[in-house]
């Protein structure tokens, strides 16, 4: 059986579901961010699979590069926020950080 589009879509789906589960269950803020990275990666796998098997050109790969760029920005900002939260609350448990006042 040839490796076709559906193989890659199933891999993307499984990675997405793992990421969703991570986001839903983690109490560590960094764990939640790692779940977001998984979801972004699954989107990238789908983009590039459609770029390879679809009828367009390089658009899918270009979008995936933009996604990687935004993921880098998101990781930098998110981890800076996590470090700020840690300095303030001495914990990064997302259930205990429930105060909006600084």
């Amino acid at each position, binding site marked *: 059986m040839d490796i076709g589009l559906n193989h890659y879509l199933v891999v993307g789906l499984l990675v997405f579901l793992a990421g969703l589960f991570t986001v839903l269950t*983690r109490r560590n803020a960094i764990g939640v961010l790692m779940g977001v990275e*998984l979801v972004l990666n699954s989107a990238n796998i789908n983009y590039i699979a459609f770029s390879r098997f679809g009828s367009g050109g390089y658009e899918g790969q270009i979008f995936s590069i933009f996604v990687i760029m935004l993921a880098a920005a998101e990781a930098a900002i998110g981890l800076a926020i996590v470090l700020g939260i840690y300095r303030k609350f001495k914990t990064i448990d997302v259930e205990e950080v429930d105060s909006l006042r600084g």
Partner: protein
Amino acid sequence: MIYAALFYGVALFTVAGAFGVAFSENVVYSAFALMATLLGAAGLYVFLLADFVAAVQLLVYVGGILVLTLFAIMLTHQISEVEVSNRAVGRWPALGLVGFVGVGMATALLRAPWKLGEGTAARAAGEGTTYGIGDSFLGPYLLPFELASIVLLTALVGAIVLSRKELRD
């Protein structure tokens, strides 16, 4: 035949890493499982003839984001502290929701009549993808490319402002 075996190996590596991130108790182990997923995804991009994106994935994700994540983990836990694990909450409701979403999406993607075409295979075989991608970035995608630069600059400044030491007066 070897191609298929290699593909299944890389795909299994990727998915196993993703489930490692989801189910491991220790957040440091999660980070290393994330590395497996990112490397596996780069391998899948090679299978999909996207050499440039695979290189970017290795440089930015594995070399940048993952190291940043590990630094953040180390900075937010005392190194002497053995208890790095984090208990998960609400596993069964989350599993139910994930199963529901998964079944829905799997039905959709296996039934949808995808419009397939030539794809990038023919063009990528000749000259690699870097030429075409660079051409698009300096042609039709010039404005998004410049906006991406502004987003990165803003993120850089924002990260510095957020994580610097608070100096009063």
